[in-house]
């Protein structure tokens, strides 16, 4: 069974990009979330092998979502996706338990390298 991924980003374009990159290498994108709150709810339902998480989102941001998901499952694997201008928030997310990060704009190779390293 291929590994499952939950993609979280408020921008449709970013969700599509990640989905295309991941499915091209056989990962299953089992769900999408548009903010941190949705990511937490979907995580409870789906228990994916990996969550990709944008940093700045409406309702609940990526840092808060990382904390909530780690409360639900301390073993959750979370890959942060951020742009250059969010370094301090990215550090907060890593301190809250995120495993790794990739920067936007997405490059296929760096996304796949990080994902492979985290979930195989």
């Amino acid at each position, binding site marked *: 069974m291929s590994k499952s991924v939950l993609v979280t980003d*408020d*921008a*449709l*374009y*970013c*969700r*599509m990009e990640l*989905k295309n990159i991941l499915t091209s290498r056989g990962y*299953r*994108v*089992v*769900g*999408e979330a*548009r*903010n941190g709150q949705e990511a937490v709810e*979907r995580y409870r339902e789906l228990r994916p092998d990996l969550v990709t998480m944008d940093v*700045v*989102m*409406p*309702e609940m*941001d990526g840092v808060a979502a990382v904390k909530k998901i780690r409360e639900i499952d301390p073993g959750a694997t979370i890959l942060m996706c951020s*742009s*250059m*201008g*969010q*370094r*301090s928030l990215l550090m907060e997310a890593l301190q809250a338990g995120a495993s790794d990060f990739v920067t*936007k*704009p997405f490059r296929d190779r760096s996304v796949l390298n990080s994902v492979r390293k985290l979930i195989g």
Partner: protein
Amino acid sequence: MDSVRLDKRELAEAVIDAASMVLRDLLKLPPRRGQMQITPIQFTRDELTIVTRISGDISGEIFLGMSKETALAILRQMLRREVTGFGRLEKSALAELGTLVTDTALALLEERGALCYSTWSGVVTGREERVTPFSEPTLAAPLSLAVGEVNVNVMFEGYAPFAWASPEARLAARRRLRLSPGERPAEEAVPLAA
């Protein structure tokens, strides 16, 4: 913290540099930069305008104006396929371009002590559309690309009241502002993948 006293020109330079960097990465060709000028932008002057709002130590708006043909050429690079119109995905991609340019500029500003963040990006199509309630003039510079011209406009509204507070207080204020509801409209629901 007096290092956040950036002037309008420094802010505009950071945004124009950032737009050059992002477009160069995307189109694999460096844009040619035209002269900076002062120009009003209460109403759009281009066929398509990407608007991004920034808040934090400095607040303002960033506009990337272009023709529809130029936007379509940029979208073909971003989406890696033929594009002929401006649907939900295409508008989301252009808004993300605005966010990328702004976040790259904000990273340059952060190195100089100003903590800011982008709160919202959107796309306005058509000329003579009102894009901002403010009538402040903007600093603008055109970037010439192989696929057309992108007009970068930067409107500086002012400094935040907490701009000279401690870094911790500024981060806390920034977090509160970022979390205020309604600043960034959520997109329509997307069905779960099978």
